[in-house]
């Protein structure tokens, strides 16, 4: 280690809890487990997007070598449907199919090869395809096909404001934004292994962000009590929201197979299957009218959002809610009307993905800002600077359209600071000079602010539990309800626990997340993993320390309140001390309990969806990015030249991990906005189901110069260690790439700037041609 050892493990840049396992290949993931006798599953999938099932012929498959069983919906003993909000997802199709790729039957065989081979022999006959499949938002609107009723958030009088602005020197612009889907592309695909144990218990080892959901749903599907199912999560090879609800179906299938055969059953999806049958980020359509006053302030915003939810409701309702909550991004908009509705289509179900609707809402908001700025002849960053929430203004501009207070004008200070440290003004001049001197290569620079609400917007989910055990030798086992998917949660939780007990992090061993240790948990999602679980861990550890303190005070001859706990030692006020290990042993001798649970529920959050008003968030996280790009007018290729980020993570629990979240989140956002294009065929089947056709950022897409700074002195009151959530927010800073690209594109001519998303080279080329006012397919005319 190069860093000096910190006195407290909190706020130290400690490596990841699994770091040695990661670099030596010893870290275990679900697919690495395969006890002897394991049966392998292959899923038979619907060949068409709609239709009634006439027959499923499994005879030939059953006779295929190595096959042990072929299961269909008829073999499900309990509830055939699962779903995180609405129970509308048949684990195996019953009478109808809803999308190409839907699970229809499951083959279990001795080897993966044999199962796959046999699955090709199952005949699924469909008839009555019914009306044509609905494949996108437009088709769903035309067919009136929706999962939800409209959710409305309103304030002020939008229509009047928009009508009166032009006469007062302001502008009104309108626009339509379409954001694309995105595949999670966690490196580890979905996987679950179910092990039958005695007494009818089934242990499901799952790569899931939500073990309790797996437990609950597997119990329903099997028709047994939740006490007969244990869900365990070793770690995930990435989640990003893709394993919040959609790991449940493979896990339930594994449990079903194990219950049916009495043998271990593994369900593993190949990359192709994973991309074809599980959903990603919701594509959105946003239509808006936006009004700005003569000083460039964002005054009125009338927005209609539609999302493509796919075939089941999944988490689409809450995703839409969060999109609506972020249509204001960081701006005080006095008159607002935000309406959102989830479309039902015949495609894989869209689901949670880092940002959870926030990116889509903010992308629409920022499109309005850029369009308004152009109409006013201002730079977008000036419109932003004039429009921020500002509680210190008179009258205060500090209430969101849904009524939550935005307590301090932190974003303004961060904006000003990054404009200075990124040298924005001087670089604009250099870029203008560069563009004047180059015909085919152009540069652009943009700025992206961010305010992101932290908490599950479904208030019930904002609770967490932990279970801490101290052994008589002073070593500690830590269990909490969160799951580890690479975000470093376990490392942070070990630090919280070690800090409270005053032991070294090496004395604390983190255990696999398991529903028999910590029950009734929430998903590890909404960036809230360390906020919620950290408080629960702290409470559990504090309870044990309180009990141990009585014994320590007695041995050290001082008052309990005079004790200090650090570095594996417990010290009294006058230099007397004892080892934590000896104290643990003494507690055992004196029959003092050395284990405790902890529990936490976030206070003060509530939201009334019918009224569109409330306080859905515990606090907001902030960030600002300045992005410089270079585009090539002959190829449409884009290069990130330099990115500066100033991000607010409160008092970081672990700066090394948090920086990694900022880097990774930003680049994943760049992928969504520039390289990753989800394509479907006329059956709604995913067309690009592998890394050769679906381009996630590679090392060559990383900015040449990437400067990230974590805001200091940023203590967040009421959160563990004064920290803030960091998992999702940096993703949205990538929207600054669009700001920069549009800046570069506008240098090609006076035509309209209309860049479609994702801004692939093709899209950039089209936008350059339009800006240069040249017909499609011809070279743009440089100056």
């Amino acid at each position, binding site marked *: 280690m190069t860093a000096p050892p910190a006195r407290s493990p909190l706020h130290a840049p400690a490596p990841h809890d699994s770091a040695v396992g990661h670099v030596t*290949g010893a870290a275990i993931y679900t697919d690495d487990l395969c006890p002897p006798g394991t049966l392998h599953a292959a899923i038979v999938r619907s060949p068409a997007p709609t239709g009634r099932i006439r027959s499923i012929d499994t005879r030939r498959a059953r006779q295929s070598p190595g096959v042990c069983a072929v299961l269909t919906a008829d073999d499900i003993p309990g509830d055939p449907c699962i779903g995180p909000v609405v129970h509308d997802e048949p684990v195996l199709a019953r009478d109808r199919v809803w999308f190409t790729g839907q699970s229809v039957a499951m083959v279990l065989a001795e080897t993966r090869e044999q199962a796959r081979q046999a699955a090709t022999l199952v005949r699924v006959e469909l008839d009555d395809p019914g009306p044509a499949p609905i494949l996108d938002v437009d088709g769903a609107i035309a067919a009136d096909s929706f999962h939800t009723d409209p959710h409305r958030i309103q304030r002020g009088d939008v229509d009047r404001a928009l009508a009166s602005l032009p006469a007062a020197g302001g502008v009104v612009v309108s626009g339509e934004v379409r954001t694309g889907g995105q595949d999670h592309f966690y490196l580890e695909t979905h996987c679950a292994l179910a092990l039958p144990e005695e007494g009818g218990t089934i242990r499901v080892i799952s790569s899931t962000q939500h073990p309790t959901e797996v437990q609950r749903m597997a119990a329903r599907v099997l028709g047994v009590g939740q006490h007969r199912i244990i869900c365990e999560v070793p770690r995930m090879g990435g989640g990003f929201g893709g394993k919040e609800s959609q790991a449940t179906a493979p896990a339930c299938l594994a449990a079903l197979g194990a219950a049916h055969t009495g043998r271990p059953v593994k369900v593993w999806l190949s990359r192709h299957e994973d991309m074809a049958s599980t959903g990603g980020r919701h594509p959105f359509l946003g239509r808006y009218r936006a009004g700005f006053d003569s000083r460039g302030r964002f005054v009125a915003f009338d927005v209609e959002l539609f999302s493509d939810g796919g075939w089941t409701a999944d988490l689409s309702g809450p995703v839409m809610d969060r999109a609506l909550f972020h249509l204001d991004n960081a701006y005080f908009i006095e008159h607002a009307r935000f309406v959102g509705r989830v479309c039902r289509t015949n495609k894989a179900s869209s689901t949670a993905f880092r940002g959870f609707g926030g990116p889509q809402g903010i992308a629409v908001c920022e499109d309005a800002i850029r369009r308004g700025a152009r109409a006013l002849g201002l730079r977008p960053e000036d419109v932003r600077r004039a429009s921020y929430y500002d509680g210190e203004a008179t009258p205060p501009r500090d209430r969101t359209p849904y009524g939550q207070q935005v307590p301090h004008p932190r974003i303004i200070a961060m904006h000003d600071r990054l404009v200075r440290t990124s040298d924005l003004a001087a670089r604009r001049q250099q870029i203008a000079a560069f563009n004047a001197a180059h015909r085919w290569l152009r540069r652009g620079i943009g700025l992206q602010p961010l305010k992101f609400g932290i908490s599950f917007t479904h208030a019930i989910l904002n609770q967490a539990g932990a279970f801490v055990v101290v052994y008589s030798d002073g070593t500690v086992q830590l269990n909490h309800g969160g799951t580890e998917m690479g975000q470093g949660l376990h490392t942070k939780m070990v630090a919280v626990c070690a800090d409270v007990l005053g032991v070294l992090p090496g004395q604390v061993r983190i255990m696999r997340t398991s529903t028999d240790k910590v029950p009734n948990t929430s998903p590890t999602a909404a960036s809230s993993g360390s906020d919620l679980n950290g408080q629960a861990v702290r409470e559990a550890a504090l309870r044990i320390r309180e009990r141990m303190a009585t014994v320590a005070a007695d041995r050290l001859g001082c008052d309990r309140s005079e004790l200090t706990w650090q570095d594996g030692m417990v010290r009294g006020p006058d230099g007397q001390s004892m080892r934590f290990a000896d104290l643990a042993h003494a507690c055992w001798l004196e029959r003092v309990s050395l284990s405790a649970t902890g529990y936490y529920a976030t206070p003060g959050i509530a939201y009334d969806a019918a009224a569109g008003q409330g306080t859905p968030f515990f606090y907001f996280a902030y960030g600002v990015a300045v992005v410089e790009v270079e585009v090539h007018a002959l190829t449409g290729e884009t290069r990130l030249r330099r990115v500066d980020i100033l991000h607010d993570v409160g008092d970081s629990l672990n700066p090394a991990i948090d920086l990694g979240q900022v880097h990774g989140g930003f680049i994943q956002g760049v992928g969504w906005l520039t390289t990753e294009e989800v394509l479907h065929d006329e059956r709604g089947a995913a067309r690009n189901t592998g*890394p050769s056709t679906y381009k996630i950022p590679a090392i060559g897409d990383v900015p040449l110069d990437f400067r990230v700074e974590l805001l200091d002195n940023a203590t967040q009151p009421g959160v563990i260690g004064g920290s803030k959530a960091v998992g999702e927010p940096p993703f949205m800073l990538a929207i600054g790439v669009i700001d920069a690209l549009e800046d570069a594109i506008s240098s090609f001519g006076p035509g309209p700037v209309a860049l479609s998303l994702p801004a692939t080279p093709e899209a950039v080329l089209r936008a350059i041609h339009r800006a240069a006012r040249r017909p499609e397919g011809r070279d743009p005319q440089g100056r």
Partner: protein
Amino acid sequence: MPRDLVLTTTVNGEPVRKLIPANRSLLDFLREDLGLTGSKHGCDVGDCGACTVHLDGQPRLSCITLAAEAMDREVRTIEGVADGTLLHPVQEALHRHVGAQCGYCTPGIVMTLTALIDDAGDTPIDDDMLREALGANICRCTGYTKILAAAHDALRSGDSQSGKAAGEIG
């Protein structure tokens, strides 16, 4: 049905002899027949690098390599990179820089970088060479920044003597 064959090869210095189907991929052979699960299935079509191993010292995507190709050759996997408890400088640097988040791409990245370094001998490796070599490895978590930093550091730290005992870290 594919024919079977007897594969004789050396894996991480150990001689191995096994009857396998002729169409078995090297990745499945390592993971399922030998229980060496450090190499990962990322895509199974040769486009992500998570399955990278060394075949006679050269990086190979084991998902699109037949196990039979390893006949009478030397295979090295992620499990054979550390020297006992002594981490290779590449492993040590990735660890120190927090270059792994979920860790699923990490074995492949270690194998790519160790092959590059071993192969280069005395030729200095610059940033472009690193980026080019790592272009074959996809990481969805880190944004690559810390991986690159770790790679540069590993180059600076030189021979494997500077590695640290794995048991002492973390």
